[in-house]
């Protein structure tokens, strides 16, 4: 089956693609650029890097644009998926949804309306096991934004490795923080992964931070 992946460039959509690729053909990546930083549906920091990631993966990327208004952004997503059906003949969509009923049910509705399969291979995955799987499979991932106490500016741009996972476990026990960021505590950016043919090298970045909220902005990056 030919599939399109809803791709944000973060750890979940990349791992979901990797799992889907074991069973089906990944024909294209679909990314939504939202003007709303607070979008409920779309992961926004560094979404421009998806172009570089698509090049690293050697998979075509379709980009959609949305003002990011609640529910209206779904019509924009539906348009993007319809374009992918027309251009690539996809029969299904893959998402990186883990536990968000809000996100998953909205994509499920669009797929049901369009007669497409909807695959959520990480659905209900334990968050610590998910992080450990990524590290074991040699994913190179950094934290690209934070939005929860007690995460501070030291987490911006930090690599997710075994030490970071141990610290996230402590924060989970002490502050009920979702260790894989499932509650929106942080977003991630994948620099290298098993399906990448080349890795992303960041040469210039900037951090914006205030009161446990911040973004790691990639100013310049290329493939090596």
């Amino acid at each position, binding site marked *: 089956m030919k599939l399109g992946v809803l791709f944000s460039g973060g750890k979940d959509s990349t791992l979901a693609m990797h799992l889907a690729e074991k*069973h089906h053909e990944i024909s294209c990546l679909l990314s939504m650029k939202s003007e709303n930083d607070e979008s409920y549906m779309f992961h926004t920091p560094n979404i421009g890097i998806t172009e570089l990631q698509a090049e690293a993966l050697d998979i075509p990327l379709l980009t959609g644009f949305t003002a990011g208004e609640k529910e209206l952004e779904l019509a924009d997503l539906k348009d993007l998926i319809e374009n992918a059906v027309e251009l690539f003949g996809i029969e*299904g969509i893959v998402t990186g949804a883990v536990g968000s009923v809000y996100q998953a049910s909205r994509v*499920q509705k669009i797929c049901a309306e369009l*007669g497409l*399969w*909807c695959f959520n*291979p990480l659905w*209900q995955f334990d968050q610590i096991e998910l992080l450990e799987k990524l590290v074991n499979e040699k994913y190179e991932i950094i934290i690209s934004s934070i939005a929860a106490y007690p995460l501070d500016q030291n987490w911006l741009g930090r690599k997710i490795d075994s030490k970071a996972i141990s610290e996230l476990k402590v924060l989970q026990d002490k502050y009920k923080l979702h260790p894989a960021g499932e509650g929106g505590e942080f977003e991630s950016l994948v620099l290298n992964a098993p399906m990448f043919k080349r890795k992303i090298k960041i040469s210039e970045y900037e951090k914006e931070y205030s009161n446990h909220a911040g973004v790691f902005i990639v100013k310049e990056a290329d493939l090596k």
Partner: protein
Amino acid sequence: MKVLIVSTCSDKLSELEFVNPIVNLISKKHDYELVNISDAERKSVKFDKVIICGTSVADNDYLQNNFEWLKNLNKPVLGICSGIQIIAKTFGGVIIPKKEIGMVEVKGELFGQKKFEAYALHTNGISKLSAFKILARSKKSVQAIKHKSKEIYGVMFHPEVRNEWVISEFIKA
């Protein structure tokens, strides 16, 4: 306790979404074996309880299987989504178009719970349920049934999402 977990997925990738969460819940405390619906008849007698898992809304292949074995199986069964459809069809019910996707309010009584929010993900519903007691409904659909004389339950919603207690209560019952 040995639980037979039955996959109704025609696509292996869907099993990660609809079967693995059930396996993860059961395997914490019980022995289990996972089989595809086409193999369930041969295996079901060796187990204490059977859980028939759901599948993707795009997947209707499970309806092509023969479920007559369920009639002679004197073991407790819980069918989830496509599982409730299989159970209903086996005992005289019919499958009808009925779409619900997202969180819905469920009212009635299921394992002692009278009202709760549940995750619905189906485009088929069930009707003509004279062999069953209807335990709970949402605004649009029958959400939980029990066979009138057998320990056979079905839920249309997905208990593995936010209502894991349904699976623990079924196992305990």
